[in-house]
């Protein structure tokens, strides 16, 4: 599924990464716990309710570059600035973590574990 289709499915705004929307996504991982994200060997799309500068730094360290923020949390300018350095994609959607994950799973996005 492409990022463009994911954005549509989740009714999401593209905060950054417009140019990468035709990329395909196969796997996702959902967590608000950054220490958990740091244990991943793979590099799935991250679905998270944690929306602050550490979300971006954690993704940088873990080499993840696609983030879906749930519940319309405010993606701040300093987050965008940091995300720009690593050419990340950030989507922000109004849905809860439960609904966003349910829709993605239903659409065929695969879990890691």
């Amino acid at each position, binding site marked *: 599924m492409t990022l463009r289709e994911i954005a549509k499915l989740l009714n999401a705004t593209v905060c950054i990464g417009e140019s990468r929307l035709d990329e395909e996504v196969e796997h996702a991982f959902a967590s608000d*716990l950054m220490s958990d994200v740091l244990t991943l060997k793979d590099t799935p799309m991250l679905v998270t309710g944690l929306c602050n500068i*550490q979300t971006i730094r954690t993704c940088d360290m873990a080499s993840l570059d696609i983030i879906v923020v749930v519940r319309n949390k405010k993606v701040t300018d300093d987050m965008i600035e940091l995300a720009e350095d690593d050419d990340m994609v950030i989507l922000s959607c109004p849905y809860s973590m439960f609904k966003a994950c349910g829709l993605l799973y239903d659409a065929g996005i695969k879990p890691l574990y």
Partner: protein
Amino acid sequence: MHQEYTVVEGDFVNAGKASSSVKKTLKQLNVEPGIVKRVVVALYEAEVNAIAHAYGGKVLVDIESDKIKMVVADKGPGIPDIALAMQEGYSTARPEVRDMGFGAGMGLPNMQKNVDKLNVTSEVGVGTTVEMEVNF
């Protein structure tokens, strides 16, 4: 190559700056991405600890031809029982730390899993030093 960084107590906005800079350096040196990830994940967790649990400190990084050595030395309350602190799930983190996505007691275990050598020394009331090495 020697690099030094300062970390400041409670400064979560800048937590990860040292790790981020080390990542850039290692990439420029063409170190294998899997190894770079292990290095920066471990260093980031150590940095977060110095900011979250101590009163800040220093990050010292030495890059040699075949390995990287990292030392995160803080001034702080120290760790009374290091073996206990190393256990997955053990945490004394404040709510503020949890709000940043940490504080699940996975930091020290994450460091252990990612580095080839880990040595934690601590003196209660003085501070903690975390030494790590990763072979290239």
